[in-house]
């Protein structure tokens, strides 16, 4: 029996006892006393409801990513200013053990050299839910609409980004199963617009780590008193059989172009991930992780697959390391990630001359600094920032005969400078300017000016 249940039973017994005692008093006094007790019960009920909602929210916040350090400043250890930890804000209670939460983002991009391509977009609107079945088991989901309108003739999409059941085996470890975010990098698990600097998510954690990257599977999580958080999982993986060498998509994000998002996913080959994060020092996080698995998915033998597919044994390995330090009003972060795909030579031979063969390796890194320069009252702040990114989605390709192979792509470099203005910790207005060393119209790479609005609750 939970503490809440015990407390409620005790209150009921006390009320009954008082009411019984009242039989010896006159009716008016008794009525006054009962009314007072009713009011007190109502207040206690409200308090119990609040406690339940808080507990549910705490359960939701069970981390897969680095926990905020206990004495962290208002900026969470692994997130942007004003953020909660591991998930959006606790959300709004809608019933016993159930909370709703959400976030949204509207962007305006203005390419300075191609003003005619300026674009405004309701990038995403998200509704999430958490329902705690009991103290140790919950279901967690995230539903997303992208680009305002989704239909067969529109560009929008409707997605289930997360949907998993989690069971705490003990106070500091547990398991989850379902569609879950892969715990790599600083952004993938913390992708709400209030949690990162700049109108758009950083390029490295879109092009190399394909945020928002999710897979279906089973995972364990936990943390130690020492401040070490860990995650281990076995999941579905990307499907190399879906590679389209004639599309720009694989050049924009090799893994983003072949992720399956648990949509009738080919699941012959399991993938494995592991991640470690140290959060033992308040305001400091260092960590890293690896994701690896075969991604051929037995295409040559699958129903409807290409019987000539020559890369059944191709393996993806993606690793990353990151660090974040938040001394006082400052926020510094750095990340490096690199991926490899093996056994691509024969597949790329069949793609000879196509614009987008499968890369043998790809990588990216960034450093970022931010400063909470101005604060108004308890909740408003202005945070200028700068970020320097370098990434290459085709750093090398398997060689081909007669010199017909694909040369490595040039490394893209992006400077982003701007500011987040937090009206309150959950509502942010953004402005930035991005400078690219290589324009790429197909991938919307080119110097640009951006504005954005974001919120979460």
């Amino acid at each position, binding site marked *: 029996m939970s503490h809440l249940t015990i407390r409620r039973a005790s209150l009921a017994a006390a009320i009954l006892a008082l009411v019984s005692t009242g039989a010896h008093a006159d009716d008016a006094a008794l009525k006054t006393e009962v009314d007072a007790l009713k009011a007190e019960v109502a207040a206690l009920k409200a308090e119990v409801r609040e406690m339940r909602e808080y507990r549910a929210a705490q359960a939701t916040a069970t981390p897969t990513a680095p926990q905020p350090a206990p004495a962290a400043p208002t900026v969470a250890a692994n997130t942007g200013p004003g953020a909660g930890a591991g998930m959006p804000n606790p959300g709004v209670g809608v019933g016993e053990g159930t909370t709703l939460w959400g976030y949204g983002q509207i962007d305006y991009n203005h390419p300075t050299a191609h003003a005619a391509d300026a674009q405004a977009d309701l990038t995403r609107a998200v509704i999430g839910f958490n329902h705690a079945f009991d103290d140790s088991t919950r279901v967690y989901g995230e539903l997303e609409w992208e680009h305002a309108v989704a239909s067969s003739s529109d560009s929008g999409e409707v997605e289930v980004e997360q949907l998993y059941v989690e069971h705490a085996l003990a106070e500091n470890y547990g398991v989850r199963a379902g569609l879950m975010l892969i715990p790599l990098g600083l952004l993938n698990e913390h992708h709400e617009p209030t949690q990162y600097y700049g109108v758009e998510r950083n390029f490295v954690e879109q092009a190399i780590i394909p945020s928002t990257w999710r897979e279906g599977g089973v995972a364990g999580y936990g943390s130690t008193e020492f401040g070490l958080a860990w995650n281990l999982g076995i999941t579905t993986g990307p499907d190399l059989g879906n590679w389209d060498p004639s599309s720009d998509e694989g050049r924009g994000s090799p893994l983003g172009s072949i992720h399956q998002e648990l949509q009738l996913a080919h699941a012959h080959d399991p993938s494995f991930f592991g991640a470690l994060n140290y959060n033992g020092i308040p305001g400091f996080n260092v960590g890293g992780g690896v994701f690896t698995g075969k991604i051929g998915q037995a295409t040559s033998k699958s129903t409807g697959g*290409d019987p*000539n*597919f020559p890369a059944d044994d191709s393996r993806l390995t993606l690793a990353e390391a990151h660090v974040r330090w938040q001394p006082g009003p400052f926020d510094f972060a750095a990340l490096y990630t690199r991926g490899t795909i093996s056994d691509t030579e024969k597949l790329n031979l069949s793609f000879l001359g*196509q*614009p987008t063969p499968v890369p043998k390796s790809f990588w990216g890194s960034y450093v970022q600094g931010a400063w909470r320069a101005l604060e108004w009252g308890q909740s408003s702040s202005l945070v200028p920032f700068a970020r320097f990114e370098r990434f290459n989605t085709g750093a090398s390709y398997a060689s081909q*005969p007669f010199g017909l192979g694909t040369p490595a792509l040039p490394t893209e470099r992006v400077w982003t400078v701007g500011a987040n203005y937090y009206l309150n910790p959950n509502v942010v207005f953004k402005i930035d300017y991005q400078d690219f060393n290589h324009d790429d119209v197909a991938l919307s790479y080119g110097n640009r000016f951006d504005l954005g609005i974001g919120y979460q609750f």
Partner: protein
Amino acid sequence: MAVLTASTIAASLWSMPTHSVDESPTPASLGAKIFRDASLSASGQMSCATCHVPENAHAQVNDASVQSGGANLDVPGFRAVPSLRYLNFDIPFFFANDGTPTGGFNRDGRANDLVAQAERPLTAAHEMANSDAATVAAKLAQTTYVGEFKQVFGADVFNDPDLAMLAAEYALSSYELSSPQFRPFDSKFDYFLAGKVMLSEQELRGYYFFNSQQKGGCAGCHPSTSVGGQPPLFTDYTYDNLGVPRNMDIPANADPAYFDMGLCGPERTDLANSIDLCGQFKVPTLRNVATRKVIFHNGEFHDLRRAIEFYVQRDTNPEKWYPLDDNGVPQKFNDVPPLLTRNVNQSEVPYNRHPGEAPALSEDEIDDVVAFLKTLTDGYDPATGTADPARDVPTSPQP
């Protein structure tokens, strides 16, 4: 022994439907007989196989830009004969979300399936030239296989001539859909994709130039990669206006007011008001393109290399392809009405060039692409290194 080896490998390249060993006639077995039956034409000398010769990848074997039919085989047609191979993968006509016309049978896509496609040759004045369904039915009733026809479609099938003709069209469609000779997937390129042979250096270079958007960019409309587990068909089933020079070997073109504008007519009528589509014809598969005697919808070209030259030099050297006016200026796109020349594709590779610029492919690179395209010929024998589409055709007609 070499043939046996080739056959064994070919069978492993692509699983094909097998045929029933049952001797009972089927729509497909009837279709095989109708396909080669010249008695069904007004002349008594023309069958489907006359123009769609199975041994030449189901395409013509003479050099005529257009074939002549009719009762005396003297009524000229309007368009070049396409190959029937791999047509079973075609899809009904539709407009994609972005408005791109896609699919359909015939060069203007006006037939939605092989049954509908089979109707035109039976009655077209310049082909088999039967005046109506009753004429076709009457001829069917006189064939040696009429008993099988009744066995398959019912003893009273001839009570309704329209039904009898539809049954014949259905039989032809069944034959084309079920017979592996229409889709053997046994070219050298198929062997290459299966990892069983390697292309030569020149062929690989040609493949590279074929795909590269900085070179030929051919794969833009003739995709060379597998989709959904199916070997590449080298067509995206869309339509394009290439501005092919007017072919004065087509008698109809003697009339300067006559223009064959594909999707918007005159043979197709439902898109006559879609002016922006005028001049667009279906992108054909390039499988067996090296065996074609005529190339493009109007059969203007008879040589594959020259056709590729046209692709890459149309805009850099228009004087090579179009007649010159009195001032020596090339009359580009002279097979499109003057007001509709804007419909000609002038934006995609390799058409996005101008006089004075280098063509997208050099002369050597054109040779390389030709070498690659020759690897798309059916009936490849790895033992001899030769390809012959006739190898896919049974020695006696069968479904």
